[in-house]
């Protein structure tokens, strides 16, 4: 049986841990709120923008007009932008992310990488593949400016036909309790099949200036927004996952403290009992001697 002092030490240690995890949980919760506002409010914008891009790309007769929607290259290479948190202690999120990452690398052994976030950086470093750039993900809400250097790198390769497609590995936020790592295609933009109905053909549609003038700036904007949305989703997932993980840790610590306290009290009690027995026993022995 453990001694009283060591039990007391363990109780104190668990209390300290629970304090830390509780603080981390609260920080994650407040960050989560901000991230949720940002990500959820930009969702309708991205959705509409993507509808518009689909719509206008459908109208363009010459699909080769912009490399974003139609890429002709001999290269079969894929560029993958991998987004991960910088910090750990966020439950199974990173494990899941790495699992998805490894299964992707098996399928695409020749891919080039851009990494954003320290946790995947270590994984990518183990691969023989080319790592183009490595960015810091940061521990605060990603800024829109963060996408520009990434986009520039992508453009350098993509417009010069060094790569055939760009994919993003990120963590999709479906709810506070579930975040799933996913690989999405950023470029070329996948165009859905146009629904040719009589109604849509009849409608007249004006473009000012022409489709060809609007398209490039719209596509550029769309790519930036799409990438930013991926960053936001990843950040949001990280915070949600951390909040839940820390909540569990705090609860576990509480359970442990309770169990340890019970043991501590039991030990203390039995110690008192045995001391009492000692005293009464020796007293008895004394009385017996006197008689």
């Amino acid at each position, binding site marked *: 049986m453990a001694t009283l002092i060591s039990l007391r030490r363990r109780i104190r240690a668990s209390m300290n841990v629970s304090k830390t995890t509780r603080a981390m949980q609260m920080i994650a919760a407040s960050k989560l709120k901000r991230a949720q506002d940002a990500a959820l409010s*930009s969702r309708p914008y991205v959705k509409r*923008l993507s509808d518009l891009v689909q719509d206008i790309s459908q109208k363009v007769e010459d699909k080769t007009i912009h490399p974003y929607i139609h890429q002709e290259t001999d290269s079969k290479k894929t560029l993958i932008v991998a987004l991960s948190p910088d910090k750990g202690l966020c439950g199974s999120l990173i494990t899941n992310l790495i699992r998805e990452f490894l299964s992707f690398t098996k399928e695409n052994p020749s891919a080039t990488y851009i990494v954003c976030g320290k946790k995947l950086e270590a994984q990518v470093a183990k691969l023989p593949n080319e790592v183009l750039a490595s960015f810091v993900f940061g521990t605060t809400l990603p800024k829109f400016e963060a996408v520009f250097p990434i986009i520039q790198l992508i453009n350098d390769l993509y417009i010069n036909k060094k790569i055939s497609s760009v994919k993003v590995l990120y963590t999709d936020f479906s709810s506070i309790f579930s975040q799933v790592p996913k690989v999405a295609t950023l470029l070329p933009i996948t165009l859905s099949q146009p629904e040719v109905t009589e109604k849509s053909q009849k409608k007249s549609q*004006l*473009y*000012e*200036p022409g489709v060809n003038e*609007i398209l490039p700036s719209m596509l550029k904007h769309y790519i930036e*927004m799409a990438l930013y949305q991926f960053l936001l989703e990843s950040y949001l997932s990280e915070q949600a996952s951390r909040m839940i993980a820390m909540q569990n840790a705090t609860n576990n610590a509480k359970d442990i403290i309770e169990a340890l306290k019970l043991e501590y009290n039991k030990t203390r009690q039995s110690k008192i009992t045995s001391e009492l027995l000692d005293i009464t026993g020796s007293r008895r022995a004394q009385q017996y001697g006197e008689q």
Partner: protein
Amino acid sequence: MQLQIITPEKIVFDEEIDELVVPTVRGEIAILPHHVNLLTQIAPGEMTIKQKQKSHHMAVAGGFLQIADDTVSILADFAVRSEEIDAKKALEAQQRAEEKIKNQKEHMSERDFELVQADMRRAILQLKVARKRHRGAPIS
């Protein structure tokens, strides 16, 4: 006709309106109900929304405008109603951007320069729209 103004931050406006005057890259256009379907690019500037007897002014920075089935949707990088413009903040933002450009012009990358410039343009635009509402009165 319905007007929806959506920015990355939020849905700024979603109401029934009677007329919309908006700056585009090809010049200012006015849109009345039952306008033909249109897709165009918006230029930074001031937008006027007429709603029954009232008219609102809004500062808008670049974006796209789509008219489909008598519904106007504007996807703007940034849009703010003139009543909500914080003139003081805008003035500060302008001064900050000006200072940054003055002090660090040599050290800035092209991209950074563009960003600061965009900040400044946005601030100036807000001030312009705000001043109009104040009928030229100086902003404290």
